[in-house]
């Protein structure tokens, strides 16, 4: 199991050809209280770098981009009733959707945990 990160603060935790996508702890702390999450439909094709979901804080709406291309296989319906889970456990119960990867090689362009932590330090 390996986790990769985007510069837009999404993570994808990969097991085999499936990935779990969410936003990072840094992202949730920057957003503040999450009050609404719009998730993609199961079965939808998502494209690396294109909008796949929307996360809304009290102040504003932000797009969540697909870290890699593939097909959505499941969504976290718990977030509909409890969007604050994204703040509480962004890397755990606050995940957004699961996807089947189209091309695992796309992961190589993303950051490792260590690279991402360095990146966050460089922008904050």
């Amino acid at each position, binding site marked *: 199991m390996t986790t990769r990160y985007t510069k837009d603060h999404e993570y994808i935790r990969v097991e085999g050809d499936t990935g779990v996508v969410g936003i990072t702890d840094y992202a949730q702390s*920057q957003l*503040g*209280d999450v009050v609404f999450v719009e998730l993609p439909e199961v079965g939808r094709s998502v494209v690396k770098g294109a909008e796949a979901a929307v996360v809304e804080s*009290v*102040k504003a709406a932000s797009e969540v981009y697909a870290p890699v291309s593939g097909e959505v296989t499941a969504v976290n319906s718990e977030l509909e009733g409890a969007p604050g889970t994204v703040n509480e456990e962004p890397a755990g119960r606050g995940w957004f959707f699961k996807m089947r990867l189209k091309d695992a090689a796309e992961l190589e362009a993303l950051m490792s945990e260590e690279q991402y932590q360095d990146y966050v330090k460089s922008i904050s």
Partner: protein
Amino acid sequence: MASPAGAGETLLKTPLHGEHVAAGARMVPFAGYDMPVQYPSGILAEHVWTREHAGLFDVSHMGQAALIGPDHAMIARALEALVPADILDLKPGRQRYTQLLDEDGGILDDLMVARPANPLQDGELLLVVNASMKDADYAHMSARLPAGAELRRFDDRALLALQGPQAESVLARQAPDLASLAFMQGSQTMIGGIPAHVSRSGYTGEDGFEISVPGERAAELWRLLMSDEQVRPIGLGARDSLRLEAGLCLYGHDIDIRTSPVEAGLTWSIQKRRREEGGFPGAERIRREIKDGPARVRVGLKPESRAPAREGTTVTAPDGREVGKVTSGGFGPTVNGPVAMGYVAREFARAGTELRLVVRGKPLPAKVVEMPFAPHRYKR
């Protein structure tokens, strides 16, 4: 995730800037000032705290000034030439909400006007205007004052707001006389040895006070009030969600030069004598709109789903025809759901009317509702 835009310009600081930074506030540019948008507890917790206890706001960025003339009648008439409220009838110690209007009745800014209680201050009117508009407002007023009247800026004063059901008991511990003030009444008093002009008013829909003090004493007052366990600091984020639930207009969003007070649902702030006599900018249009009804009206909009509809969202009829725009919208923590306000064509303005809000291309059902979304709890 899309990242927020940064800011590089030089920002002004209020006298309480150091208090915000020390409290761990997230600072953002607002109307040229570096202001706290939230403290570590976050906007939701700050919003709820204000509705249940007492929230302390730094609103020192707002413009404080006085119009000064030889007596009340003269200075009141001078201001009445610029606003539609009855200022002549304003009693000592009372405050009124009104709008500076342009020649077409469009709103240049909205403001509070207070007449000091002290007879020695006869001929003074205290003004509080929006931060982003203060230079424009002062220039507008100064250019139109008659001989013998002047506008004096109080740029060195700070303004604090203490809002919420516990505000009265908190403030009464420092200045017992303030408990007897009524909504929109003001008084000059001492709070912990600091000379203050206090009015019972605010921008949250809750009971509360707005406290004007010399800038150099502001931090001392801030700390004194913060020492009460009922008090927590509240940032601009919760200030916005609180006023939205209270149905109150934000200048530059819900009202501006393109909207009249009648369209904005502010006809209540135009007293009877002024409606009858006119004599303010745009009087012809405003009196016509009062009589015949304006073409469009500001209304409350309650989305039926959980998705917030933000400023700029298109409002349509169920058949898809565009009938208006959202001017403020977001999540209402007390309502525990999305709330919005905006302008719709008058035939769609009746409470209960079913409309659609087009969010990310999808027409989401919403209803026109009476405002406020959270009941006002002013002490009348």
